[in-house]
């Protein structure tokens, strides 16, 4: 795209392939390019570089609209982490624990995945790494009870933030989504307005299914933000453009590796640059 000297159908095809290849999706790609064609006509743009910059700005604008930070403005701030299997929920909680701990905050983890083999053990290792406390019951215990106890403990210990892990679940499993709604409701009993944040973790390697995941998880527990993980791979995570424009859900954080420090605030411009690189 950088060596083109004129705006022609080949340029649009090339841009279409970049977007489709980045998992932006057919409909969103067509809408974006249609908008660009219109602007090119209106502004009589002749330089392909200018067109590409315009496209990048359009995408960044969609993403900027919706990006937001996590503020610790409650005593304690309760953050629930949800998503389908294997996307990086537990690891993201480990990273958040590390971040808040570094900021001098008192962190409490809740081992809310009482189902999967060694899920509690896994979160315990992260608690040890970040040097934070963890509330856990035995495997097979009621996840809602763990979340409830964690909030009660957080209040009595003066924790600044509670991070609640949940078991991975496919959004198509109605009974599991009902269970998740119940966990959220029970958290509201331990503290009014809890959870204050519900973060949906999405894997950057996921394709169009991320839209369906976002829609159903929003219906079940009202998502306040998205964490996009595994952006250190070759997947671009372009599906977040559709999520931001169609569902108005803010992208808050990105995961760029498996270590505690591999968590960054979402930056729309950086994201768009990476999309086109």
């Amino acid at each position: 795209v950088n060596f083109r000297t004129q705006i022609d159908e080949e340029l649009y095809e090339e841009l279409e392939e970049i977007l489709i290849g980045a998992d932006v999706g057919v409909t969103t790609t067509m809408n974006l390019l249609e908008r660009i064609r219109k602007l090119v006509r209106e502004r009589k743009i002749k330089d392909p570089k200018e067109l590409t910059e315009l496209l990048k700005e359009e995408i960044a604008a969609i993403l900027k609209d919706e990006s937001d930070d996590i503020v610790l403005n409650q005593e304690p701030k309760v953050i629930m982490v949800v998503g389908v299997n294997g996307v990086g929920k537990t690891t993201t909680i480990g990273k958040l624990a590390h971040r808040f701990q570094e900021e001098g905050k008192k962190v409490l983890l809740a081992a809310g995945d009482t189902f999967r083999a060694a899920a509690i053990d896994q979160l315990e290792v992260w608690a040890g790494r970040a040097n934070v406390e963890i509330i856990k019951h035995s495997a097979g215990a009621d996840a809602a009870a763990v979340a409830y106890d964690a909030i009660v403990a957080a209040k009595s210990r003066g924790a600044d933030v509670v991070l609640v892990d949940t078991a991975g679940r496919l959004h198509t499993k109605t009974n599991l989504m009902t269970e998740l709604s119940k966990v959220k409701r029970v958290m509201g009993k331990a503290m009014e307005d809890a959870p204050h944040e519900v973060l949906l973790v999405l894997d950057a390697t996921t394709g169009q299914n991320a839209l369906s995941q976002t829609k159903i998880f929003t219906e079940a527990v009202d998502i306040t933000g998205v964490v996009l993980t595994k952006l250190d791979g070759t997947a671009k995570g372009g599906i977040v453009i559709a999520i931001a424009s169609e569902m108005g859900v803010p992208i808050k954080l990105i995961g760029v590796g498996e270590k505690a420090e591999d968590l960054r605030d979402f930056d729309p411009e950086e994201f768009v640059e990476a999309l086109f690189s």
Partner: protein
Amino acid sequence: GLTEKLQSTFKRLRGKGKLSEKDVNAALREVKMALLEADVNFKVVKDFISILKERAIGAEVLESLTPAQHVVKIVNEELTRLMGGEQSKINIASKPPTIVMLVGLQGAGKTTSAGKLAKLMHKQGRRPLLVAGDIYRPAAIKQLQVLGEQLDIPVFTMGDKHSPVDIAKGALQQAKSINCDMLIIDTAGRLHIDEVLMEELKAVKDHIHPHEILLVVDAMTGQDAVNVAETFNEQLGIDGVILTKLDGDTRGGAALSVRAVTNRPIKFVGMGEKLDALEPFHPERLSSRILG
């Protein structure tokens, strides 16, 4: 689904008499959209459409009274042919133990699939030994041990202070001494672009020569499936694929991408979190799922 979309495409063209190549292109465009929306990689879609076009501009479609049905029939046939036949079995070594190694990206479902495969092999009369080859992920060894306990299948571990090469060698020794005829090696999730970790897998392969290297792929993977599969196959060589989390509502186009770039069979599909949720791969089922 695709049939309805094609029918409305051809309806708009009716009354013009015989279909032209231009009409067929309109139909192929609908097929292209359906495949892209199903997460098939755009390069794979391009190649597939050109194969379809050769068949679609034949008299079979141009002179048909039901062109939409005919195009769908051709698409289904070509998709199923590309997906390959059913090869849902582990190739047993002539001299035991048969060594199976599971590899793939982080979170794809390797550890769970190792447990499922062990259960299936045990049911088929084998004596598998699970090998805890992930020395990085917190509680990965414990996770495999819990699965082994649930299945009453032995798990070999050397903890997380020994290299996966040493663990694999140790497991081979153990298999022979406790008379296990199959090794199922769980490995740490890794990026295909992580040179150090890809070298680690090559080292394990060079030292114990697995009979089957299975790439575990999440069925909801998007366009990136092509990069992952191609790289794992080029650098390590894969013998087959396990496609996981197909119990969701993803269309599963990644399966076509992986098959197209590696030409390796999808051997099993994961249909749930429980250890009995491993099924043989049925190409026609996945084809109709991809077409939607």
